């Protein structure tokens, strides 16, 4: 049985706390810019949390879309990133392409703002006050539905949920769809939105060292494209002490693809960092490290896809052969991916 998934990246997009657009965000990141954090407070309580929001101008252009008029922020981020990936690939959606493009949406917490608001209405005012306009947006696959609708895609649509490894699980899943369905492309979008209840929860889980962030990243997988992508199916862990061994195995499996010049790191918490450092030193000695979460924060559904986009840009801009992205979830799975410049693409995409 094939352990690693294999496909090509045809296009990418992201909507981050540093803005949107592959080049502008990359440049700001490399320059050392920091996103502006915003406080979010539990009403009536003294404590507040800081999170990294997406600048409003990144999604303003979607504001008048009828389908999105009542949707939550997560759907706006997902649609903006998905549109950017299609544009980056130079694809125009025709009826034929629409039917031959699947959508895989990844998230950890989904439409948490509407979920909290809807339940708040139940608790404060009773069930009769709960708005039927809010409830549909609380369903995990609402953003995927908006995404398909706004991009005009009517191929298969899947929503995957999980911890911060869900983005790479979605890429692996998308590769499986390319292997098993009669389709040409699969658009993978991971997204997250913030609400104070999520910040509370992450603090309770002692996951608050890296600020919670909003954002989305999109990777269009196809049968050809400038980058080759190999994905690991993942290894579950049941206790934090199992993370080092699982990460070790993932890195060893991915190392079979060859040495990587870049490692786009995942760890955002102390219990992950030591394990990631050890595994990278053993299997990828000498790889230069990038740490996107130090700048973009932790947007669980989007984080792994942000890593993959960063890895693709890193190899493209440096001319390196390969970049590794280990992906450490917080309570489910370890995964990972390797991004390579496709041989046929070397030349056109590497900047001089």
């Amino acid at each position, binding site marked *: 049985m094939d352990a690693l998934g294999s496909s090509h990246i045809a296009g990418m997009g992201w909507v981050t706390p540093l803005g949107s657009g592959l080049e502008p965000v990359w440049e700001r990141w490399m320059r050392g810019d920091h996103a502006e954090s915003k406080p979010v407070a539990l009403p009536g309580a003294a404590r507040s949390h800081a999170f990294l929001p997406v600048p409003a101008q990144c999604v303003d252009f979607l504001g008048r879309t009828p389908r999105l008029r009542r949707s939550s922020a997560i759907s706006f981020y997902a649609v903006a990133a998905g549109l950017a990936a299609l544009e980056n690939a130079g694809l125009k959606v025709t009826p034929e392409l629409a039917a031959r493009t699947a959508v895989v949406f990844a998230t950890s917490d989904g439409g948490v703002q509407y979920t909290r608001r809807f339940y708040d209405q*139940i608790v404060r005012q009773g069930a*009769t006050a709960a708005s039927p306009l809010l409830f549909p947006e609380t369903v995990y696959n609402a953003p995927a539905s908006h995404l*398909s609708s706004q991009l005009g895609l009517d191929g298969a649509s899947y929503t995957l*949920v999980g911890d911060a490894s869900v983005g790479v699980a979605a890429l692996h899943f998308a590769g499986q769809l390319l*292997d*098993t369905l009669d389709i040409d492309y699969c658009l993978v979008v991971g997204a997250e939105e913030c609400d104070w209840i999520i910040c509370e929860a992450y603090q309770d889980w002692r996951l608050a060292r890296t600020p919670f962030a909003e954002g989305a990243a999109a990777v269009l997988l196809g049968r050809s494209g400038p980058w080759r992508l190999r994905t690991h199916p993942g290894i579950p862990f049941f206790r934090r002490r199992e993370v080092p061994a699982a990460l070790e195995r993932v890195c060893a499996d991915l190392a079979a693809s060859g040495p990587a010049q870049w490692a786009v790191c995942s760890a955002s918490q102390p219990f992950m960092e030591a394990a990631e450092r050890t595994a990278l030193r053993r299997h990828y000695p000498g790889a230069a490290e990038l740490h996107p979460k130090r700048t973009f924060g932790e947007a669980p559904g989007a984080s792994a896809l942000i890593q993959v986009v960063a890895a693709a840009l890193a190899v493209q801009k440096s001319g390196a052969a390969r970049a590794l992205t280990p992906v450490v979830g917080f309570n489910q799975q370890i*995964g990972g991916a390797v991004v390579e410049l496709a041989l046929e693409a070397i030349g056109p995409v590497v900047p001089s």
Partner: protein
Amino acid sequence: MPTPCRVAITAAGILSPLGPGLSATREALLAARDAVSPVERFDVSLTRAKTAGQIPDAWLSPETDPRARLHRASLMLMAATRELWAGDPGFEPELWVIGTTSGGMSFGEAFYRALHHRPARRARWLANYLPQKPVLDAQAACGSVAPSQIIANACASGTNAAGHAFSLIRAGKQRRVLCGGYDALSELVFVGFDALQASTPDKIRPFDRDRTGLVLGEGAAVMALEELDSAQKRGAPILGEITGYGLSTDNHHLTQPHPSGIGPLRAMERALASAGRAPREMDYINAHGTATAFNDATEGTAIAQLFGPGGVPVSSTKSMMGHTLGAAGAIEAVVCLLALQHQFLPANLHYSQADPAWDLNIVANHTRPARVERILSNSFGFGGTNASLVMEKAH
């Protein structure tokens, strides 16, 4: 192109309002039992709907350290997987594909209430709210360290999970996959369907002219899928086969299907094409049949169009246990497996008046014996996700 692999079902496990386990479920199906009862887990004094298909706590044996504070959803999925392994102890999945819509939502509700009423107090068990936790709990309970994929495609999740698992084995990408679905009742989801006026204070009457909406339910079901030759080589029981899977996406509206029924029609057509079967070769359709005005109108139209007037027998087993959301597709697949194994057509309860919009052959009110070789099972969800499975009797 390599020859597609055949996909066997070697074991199954189920915990539904109809009963704990395959045998109790079969007995309830044969008796056409109505397993819907007044909701007891949370206050329903302000909702229109008051009933649901529920799992009694007595059916959930913790068998774990109570300090783990596992969610009922975990206990349901653990019970179903335990039964699966009792049926095929040699099954070693390479992957788990599980559907759900709301994970351990009631723990999220409790967390919110704790913050709302006493903001200084922290709820430490919120980690068990996340949808991956029941899957991890079930994996831990049976010692499986395979990766998992958790599909949240609303009410089609369970069928999508089985369909994706089937596709992987059929294409030779995996040899053994555990698939299924789970969902536990929660106040938020119950009130949500009530707010949409999709749920009913009445009985659930799928395809009836006087249908008034759905009744929610809860439960879990899993199936062990394996490439047929591999299963036969190790002497595993072959309970049935999955032979086709079709899916479609309907972008018409977030919560309403396109009135033409094009979404369900495409999913069924594609499942039949995938199985290499004609509509007339089906012996039974386990419909999505939620008894909402919109679903039954579009599904009824699509079935009548594809299978012809008065064609293949149709029933919705949601009429017995309610709509179990992310678990529904998996539970109904196991119901279909039981129908194939024991040769019966499950009843569509509370059916009295045919809807003049279509001419369907409804299995009205009583389960009946029949020769059943092939079944089509439908699941359609919010967001326009439509999925159909074709299942066949083992030979």
